[in-house]
């Protein structure tokens, strides 16, 4: 099992969610986050006051999947979240040791 953590542009969420549902991914957790990468920040000007905004708003999505689905999910996120512009985000993949569904006590593959 793998945990896929992807940082994407906020307006790309719906497309990504739809494509993952179509693939059969059964769940997703979304968090509003701020951060920076190569895109850096931008400058905001309020009358005479200029502020460098170094952290930009992004969405972090977390999806747990069976290992055999990994490539398809990565492909889906990569194709749907891509604009080709700097700041499209990143995907991190980590191994997942154990999963438990709280309601039933099912574990691992059954709980995904």
């Amino acid at each position, binding site marked *: 099992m793998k945990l896929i953590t992807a940082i994407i542009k906020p307006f790309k969420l719906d497309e990504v969610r739809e494509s993952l549902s179509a693939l059969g991914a059964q769940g997703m957790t979304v968090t509003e986050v701020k951060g920076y990468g190569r895109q850096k920040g931008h400058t*905001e*000007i*309020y*009358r*005479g*006051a200029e*502020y460098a*905004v170094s952290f930009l708003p992004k969405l972090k999505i977390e999806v747990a999947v069976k290992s055999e689905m990994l490539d398809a999910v990565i492909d889906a996120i990569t194709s749907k979240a891509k604009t080709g512009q700097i700041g499209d985000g990143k995907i991190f993949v980590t191994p997942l040791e154990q999963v438990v569904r709280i309601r039933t006590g099912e574990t691992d593959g059954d709980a995904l």
Partner: protein
Amino acid sequence: MTIESLKKAGHATLAGLGMLAMTAGMAWAQEAAAAPVPDKGDTAWMLVSTVLVLLMIVPGLALFYGGLVRTKNMLSVLTQVLVVSCIVMIVWALWGYSMAFTDGGSLDNYVGGFSKALLAGVDTSTVVETFSRGVVIPEIVFVAFQMTFAAITTALVIGGFAERMKFSAICVFSVLWPTLVYFPMAHMVWWWPGPEFASTNSAEATVAGAGLIWTYGALDFAGGTVVHINAGIAALVGAILVGKRIGYKHESMAPHSLTLTMVGASLLWVGWFGFNAGSNLESNAYAGLAMLNTFLATAAAGIAWPAFEWILKGKPSLLGAASGVVAGLVAITPAAGFSGPMGAIVLGLVASPICLIFVSVVKNKLGYDDSLDVFGVHAIGGIVGAIGTGIVVDPALGGAGIVDYAAGGASVYPGVATQVTAQLKGVLTTLVWSGIGSTIVFGLIKFTIGLRVKEEVEREGLDIAEHGERAYNM
């Protein structure tokens, strides 16, 4: 000359008026012929105008300012604007009206007396003159109308030292500052013997009974000097004496809600029609002129500010448009009933970029922390408006001219040099009076109860630390 053709401001400042009927030495005015009776249309307009000026303060100014501060200080600003206004209203009724609009005896050039303290002698039967001979409005309505001016001027000042002043200091300020600074300023600009006296006496006699700035022949239709330059200077003095905010220039102090700032600026604009067109004191074409000018100067300024931002910084901003709107409103205030519509457009186009350059370049060079740019917008916009008034009033430029009561109500213009000089004298007197008076007021507070909150209070935010609540529980 018919009465209608005279419905215009006095030879000097406009929006004030003499308490002819109430002044013992001028009792003949009421005896002469039939005593004038208030017109219901004029009275109705002044009632509406009074409430419109209240709308400027709450929620207009409160939201305009509130949106510009950080989330942690939102409620402190709203509380300050609301409570300051309440305090000033009470002070106005107790002694403010009397200090502004009665004869001050030997000090009459500078301030009124206490003959109407606690509104003594003011009742539903007393009247005050407008700017037309033989036209009056109920004094009780005039008291209420002018009360809202005192309240908004004092509330404007708090923008200069937002996010760091103690609430207790602000409460004391809102009693002392109007008393030492605003009431005398209102007297100096707006106190004169009135059109009946001015029409039946020499110009010298009229001047002898008027406030200092009135005697210069300076024009101020709705309070460019008394309200805006005055408040702007006081805000600057307060900002300097209380010191810069912790983290100024290092931490982000971006406005927490420009949405609310836009709502506030819009309410200010709506309310400003009561302020400017109401200052005509009569419901007639000159009130209409003031209204049209309050639209056009503001629109021009609301275009010019973001346009210059677009050119200079690449993007036209909402805050720029809102700031431009306020700068235009400030600039047209002294000229509202004097300028022609085209003059108003020019005034707005000129005032807006000057304020923009001031708040974005000059302020940064000088390094003081006037949190919400009260000085940069109200004092600078007010000065541009005050000087501009001396030019756009010229009938040759489409202006309304100045009524010379002693010459039978003829419309005159003394020439640009004379009039602009008079305007400059008015501005300088305001700068000096407000500068010194405000320094005394803030100095007194600073060395007694103190002006500034503790460092940890400032860091936590004034909402929780000073008021025990937060603006947004989400």
